[in-house]
């Protein structure tokens, strides 16, 4: 195996040289040359920086974004298949953008949401739970507004915000009782309505594979047992708004898998 050429430096940065890129990938993949990997990272750091800059103005420091994008770049370098007839930049761009999007999703706010609205969303979530306990039923919007001393419009805005921007990551949601292993397939008979939607049990299994056991359980309780969101929340010690979010994600996955040509909302 020939040693890769020394990278060409152009005014303090490395240029994206296709031939050199290939040589470096060969050295890294075939010979385990860590230095070649480091050089690749250095060569394509500008791509990571450029993509990170597209996410600026969303409330995150640019240095943090560059760090996230660099992680995406390293993943792309480690996963890139040198046998494929595709340029590395073509492969790396969606990987880096995916990493940045995941960062915002995990962090919560995919777009910049005013802090006031973030806080209000959180307070509305707590107020729904507190009022449900007190009233022993699902509260109305005016009741929540009165409880928090805000207008009904602000409550509605906060509800939409909570769901749309997912500021508590799903992964950190408390798992409901018995949800670790729940599989809706075990509960569905051939006469159930969902079976009328799919062609057969295999198809249903394929559709459900993208849902976590917790999501399957919430789906089952709402659409088969007929429980309300508040009842599901109370039964399993999670908030009504978390149930709402789980259900919406679940329906989105079902729809995408069942009706792939359908529009996404």
């Amino acid at each position, binding site marked *: 195996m020939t040693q890769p050429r020394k990278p060409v430096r152009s005014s303090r940065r490395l240029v994206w040289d296709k031939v050199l890129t290939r040589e470096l990938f060969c050295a890294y993949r075939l010979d385990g040359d860590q230095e070649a990997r480091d050089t690749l990272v250095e060569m394509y750091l500008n791509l990571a920086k450029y993509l990170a800059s597209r996410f600026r103005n969303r409330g995150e420091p640019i240095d943090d974004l560059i760090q996230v994008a660099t992680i995406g770049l390293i993943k792309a370098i480690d996963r890139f298949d040198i046998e494929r007839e595709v340029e590395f930049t073509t492969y790396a761009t969606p990987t880096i953008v995916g990493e940045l999007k995941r960062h915002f999703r995990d962090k919560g706010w995919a777009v910049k949401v005013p802090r006031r609205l973030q806080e209000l969303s959180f307070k509305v979530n707590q107020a*729904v739970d507190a009022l449900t306990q007190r009233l022993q*039923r*699902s*509260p*109305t*919007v*005016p009741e*929540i507004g009165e409880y928090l001393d805000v207008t*009904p*419009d602000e*409550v*509605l805005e906060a*509800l*939409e915000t909570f769901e749309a921007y997912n500021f508590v990551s799903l992964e950190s949601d408390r798992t409901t009782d018995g949800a670790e292993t729940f599989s809706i397939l075990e509960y569905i008979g051939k006469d159930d*309505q*969902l079976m*009328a*939607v*799919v062609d057969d049990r295999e198809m249903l299994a394929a559709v459900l594979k993208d849902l976590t056991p917790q999501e399957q359980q919430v789906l089952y309780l*709402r*659409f088969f047992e*007929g429980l*309300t*969101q*508040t009842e599901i929340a109370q039964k399993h010690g999670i908030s*009504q708004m978390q149930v*709402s979010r789980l*259900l*919406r994600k679940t*329906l989105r996955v*079902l*729809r995408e898998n*069942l*009706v*792939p*040509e*359908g*529009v*996404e*909302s």
Partner: protein
Amino acid sequence: MTDADRIMLVVPARDEYARTVRLAAAELAARAGMDIDGIDDVRMAVEEAFVFAAERAAGDELSFTFLVGPGSVELTVGSLLPGSSADDTQDRGERYARFILETICDEFELIDDNGFCTLRLVKRAVETP
């Protein structure tokens, strides 16, 4: 339904407008006096109805008509193309919409209308003791 206010929204039959209709629907459900569970059901129903209707839109726009009365919201989406059982995806889309919307709503129907089809949904508030 009597003593109901009629609200019409005409939007392009494109996914990005589902949110617009959903936001309006949430406000109308709150106006009808629904609790948080009911409002969320209305939002979810509207989203599913939008997807269903967008697939069958006869033109470039969708027309949503809400009738909002005390404790209830009725939604009709008209001028949709009738479903075709020969089209697997469309047929499955209808079965899926029926499965979801019949559970969430108190009434669900697809009405034949001179070669077109109208989707009609009704959601009623739970009576508070």
